[in-house]
């Protein structure tokens, strides 16, 4: 732990909180102030992250972002020496300063486990849970030859390696074999050549000494409890904590300017995804719901889910909107992106435009055409990241299941995805392209198109990309974090109601009846149709849906359902486009349908109208 972790702070004496998030592209700063006994987020600022030349010091970006906040707030936050003024006195300084960071590309790890689907999967979950990007997974059954595995370790230069394998008391041979494979590779760390590569051993505890024997003094070996002590159980917390500690001690300390940032912060700096995960878990727990969160950044897209109390997080490295935008296009392909574009665009120019964004990642769309295209890319980035998340968030593999006579015809096996769109209650979007979309309808549409929620799902967004800050604030001042979260962070967009079932051209999908204080509607939805009804922020409405056979709102095919829909800045969305969502193959029908969705959802109204909002 860094020294700042030991600071004792009296929560009652904290009136002004300054928080920053050093993202891969942008450093965001927010000011939280206690007003009339309540904590509220008051001002925000941002500046390019400065881990690169000529600054090569993350604190330069922090000072720039904080200076902007200070100018807007009329509060001097930076002193003549370029440091944050503490404690607050009158219109000067703040009481505490906290930060999260994913600058420097975040924490990059390799994991190794004996069997890909078991110990390696648990190790991967622990690493992702700690907010790491998992660069590669080495395991005994990954079909690579030992020398290829060794070469891979050498090439990747991870920040640290997590090694797992074997249940406690089980076989020792395989995990020691893996240790013997990693040791001679002599992995080189990414930052600087002076520190030793941290390796965390979280496997069979009885093999601990043999694993220690395999490594020499070239690495820093830390042993923690087994991530999979028995086959049916995971114990990820000790490995996760060790990753956080080593991240602070070793990795951040070697990135440009982090030592200074660590010395400034009044609480340990967390990796950004770790902080967002904390706050999403808190929401799901407090409201007793299944929640899904997404944070789409410049370099990565992080997806978080809590289903029936089980938390999962994936960091999709190289799926992002700036540094990785070209990779989104390479993975999704241009035609898949263009299926979300209702305007005429030249594919050659678009390809160049994507690359230009990749090499100059901090630019923003100035034209409507630019915005439409960027939001189309965002839909694909989100969709691909969600696919990865669903594949990862599964029940434990390799566990024998008790089956009853009733399960005879069930095809379910271990390793099923626990992410179920029909059970999803709340979908929260965060990250620049979602949080800063000029029109909230655009945010809602991007989320619906990418995640394809089923049944009834409430949509919300992180108002100004505040979740990381609040995640770390929750660690030092949970009351302030929750107050700000509830009042200033979450903006409810409304509710989406959509059935599961295939699109069948021209066929009626379902009938609806909506009754509320300001909204009373009945009608029929034809396949491929979308409808948006105004339903105010503090309003709700009862929605009765009667689907045709083949369409399911959660009660079964063709079964009637009744929902209590929550309003929001966007309203109530009825979506009869089918799940999985398909767009018509022929270009003319496709453009006609797409345009009808854009118009119905009022996605791109005239600029002057938006300015009046």
């Amino acid at each position, binding site marked *: 732990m860094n020294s700042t972790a030991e600071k004792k702070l009296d929560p009652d004496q904290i009136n002004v909180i300054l928080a920053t998030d050093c993202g891969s592209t942008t450093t965001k700063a927010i000011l939280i102030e206690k007003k009339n006994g309540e904590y509220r987020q008051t001002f925000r600022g941002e500046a390019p992250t400065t*881990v690169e030349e000529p600054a090569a010091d993350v604190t330069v970006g922090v000072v720039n972002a904080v200076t902007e906040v200070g*100018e807007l707030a009329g509060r001097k936050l930076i002193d003549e020496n370029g440091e944050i003024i503490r404690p607050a006195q009158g219109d000067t300084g703040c009481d505490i300063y906290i930060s999260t960071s994913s600058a420097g590309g975040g924490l990059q790890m390799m994991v190794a486990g004996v069997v890909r689907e078991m110990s390696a999967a648990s190790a991967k979950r622990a690493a992702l849970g700690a907010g790491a990007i998992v660069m590669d997974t080495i395991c005994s059954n990954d079909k690579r030859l030992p020398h290829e595995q060794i070469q891979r370790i050498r090439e990747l230069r991870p920040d640290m390696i997590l090694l797992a394998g074997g249940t406690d008391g089980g076989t020792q041979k395989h995990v020691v074999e893996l240790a013997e494979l990693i040791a001679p590779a002599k992995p080189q760390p990414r*930052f600087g050549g002076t520190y030793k590569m941290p390796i965390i051993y979280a496997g069979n505890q009885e093999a601990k000494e043999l694993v220690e024997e395999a490594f020499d003094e070239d690495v820093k070996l830390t042993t923690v409890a087994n991530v999979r002590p028995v086959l049916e159980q995971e114990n990820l917390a000790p490995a996760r904590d060790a990753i956080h500690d080593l991240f602070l001690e070793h990795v951040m300390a070697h990135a440009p300017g982090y030592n200074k940032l660590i010395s400034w912060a009044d609480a340990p700096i967390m990796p950004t995804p770790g902080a967002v995960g904390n706050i999403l878990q808190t929401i799901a727990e407090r409201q007793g719901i299944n929640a899904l969160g997404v944070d789409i950044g410049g370099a990565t897209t992080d997806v978080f889910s809590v289903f029936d109390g089980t938390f999962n997080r994936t960091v999709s490295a190289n799926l992002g909107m700036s540094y990785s935008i070209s990779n989104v296009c390479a993975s999704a392909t241009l035609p898949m992106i263009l299926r979300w574009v209702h305007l005429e665009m030249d594919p050659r120019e678009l390809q160049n435009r994507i690359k230009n964004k990749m090499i100059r990642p901090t630019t923003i769309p100035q034209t*409507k055409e630019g915005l439409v295209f960027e939001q189309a890319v965002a839909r694909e980035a989100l969709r691909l990241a969600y696919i990865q998340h669903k594949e990862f968030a599964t029940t434990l593999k390799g566990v024998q299941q008790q089956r009853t006579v009733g399960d005879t015809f069930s095809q379910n096996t271990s390793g099923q995805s626990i992410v179920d769109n029909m059970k999803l209650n709340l979908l929260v979007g965060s990250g620049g392209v979602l949080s800063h979309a000029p029109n909230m309808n655009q945010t809602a549409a991007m989320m619906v198109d990418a995640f394809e929620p089923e049944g009834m799902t409430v949509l919300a967004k992180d108002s100004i990309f505040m979740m990381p800050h609040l995640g770390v604030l929750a660690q030092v001042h949970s009351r302030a974090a929750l107050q700000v979260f509830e009042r200033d962070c979450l903006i409810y967009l409304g509710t989406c109601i959509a059935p599961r079932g295939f699109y069948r051209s021209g066929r009626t999908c379902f009938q609806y009846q909506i009754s509320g204080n300001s909204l009373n509607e009945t009608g029929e939805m034809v396949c491929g149709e979308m409808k948006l009804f105004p339903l105010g922020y503090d309003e709700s409405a009862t929605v009765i849906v009667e689907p045709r056979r083949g369409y399911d709102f959660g009660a079964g095919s063709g079964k009637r359902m009744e929902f209590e829909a929550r309003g929001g800045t966007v309203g109530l969305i009825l979506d009869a486009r089918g799940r999985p969502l398909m767009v018509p193959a022929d270009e003319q029908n496709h453009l006609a349908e797409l345009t009808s969705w854009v118009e119905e959802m009022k996605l791109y109204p005239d*600029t002057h109208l938006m300015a009046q909002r």
Partner: protein
Amino acid sequence: MAKAYSPGLQIRQRVLHSSRRILPIPGDVLVKVGDQATSQQIVAQTFMPGDVTPVNVANQISVAPSEVPGCMLFSVGDEIHVGDVLARSKGIFGFFKAETKAKTAGTIESISHVTGQVILRGAPLPIQVRAYQAGTIKEVIPEQGVVIESEVTFLQGILGIGGEAYGTIQFACQDKDEPLIASLLDESMQGKIIIGGARMTGEAVIRGIEIGVAAIISGGMDDEDLKEILGYDLGVAVTGSEHIGTTLIITEGFGDIAMAERTFNLLKEREGSEAAVNGTTQIRAGVMRPEIVIPLDEKMKAAPQTEAKQEVSLGILDTGVPVRIIREPYFGLLGEVGEMPTELQTLESGSESRVLEVILHTGNKVIVPRANVELIEG
């Protein structure tokens, strides 16, 4: 805010520049402080641990892993040649002995009694670091490398492909707006650093590779051409290890885009000079831009500085500083910063943003988000 921070590319006619040349692992430094180094001179070298080959001896001679150390005919640290008998089982009553021979040469690194594996490490792999920048050795970092310093003309590009290359600067295009096409390249350009104007076409790059040019530098390039040359779509801007037969650097961006006049003119001034270029690019933390380093010759060093001193603080946008617009609808246009209003303005896209006015070279004024300009630093 009257000023704002914005990173940019450096274009300098004459600057005291230093290059840090460091070995990836400790080794020997071959020069001393004060020595003059040429760009291709080896200044430090080391040997990387060789490749490792795990041999599962226990399986191969059918013994328990714990018996492997007793069956080994060599010890840790011994040198092994191909065909050497590595281990022999004790057999039954001295008969039916099984043995295994080494299929690769190397040194025995470890013998495991837990897994029965023997790790063989191959011959050390030499790693050499060249000076890259011709100049004076300013600092020696023991066992690691050197810092070389000299007065140079220094230019940064926006994206490169391939690593370090050396050669004489030669122009293929006579105008910054002229595309670099295949017919402009000929055999005399072998080993040279070729300067184009606007977009370098895919055919021109392929022709350059056939001729054997050291590097090609031009304003832009089409994504589709790059994809064909590389054989894959570049997902993230982390480059430098490509082996396409030459080094490519684009100075402005993708598409039909002319090289900035200042960059073109500066390179023109140095035509015929020996230069070192590096296409390595990392547009992520710890950013690396492709660069062109041209050491000044003695005559130039003696001459008074002609370049007007720029009153540009690194990374600070301010009225009057030269900028390049880096996003549509004005992508690639150059000008200088005019007014910088403090208030947020609504863009055509509907987003609210801090903007600035750019006075273009034509005299026209355009309003763009501050995020969409880049300083031309010099």
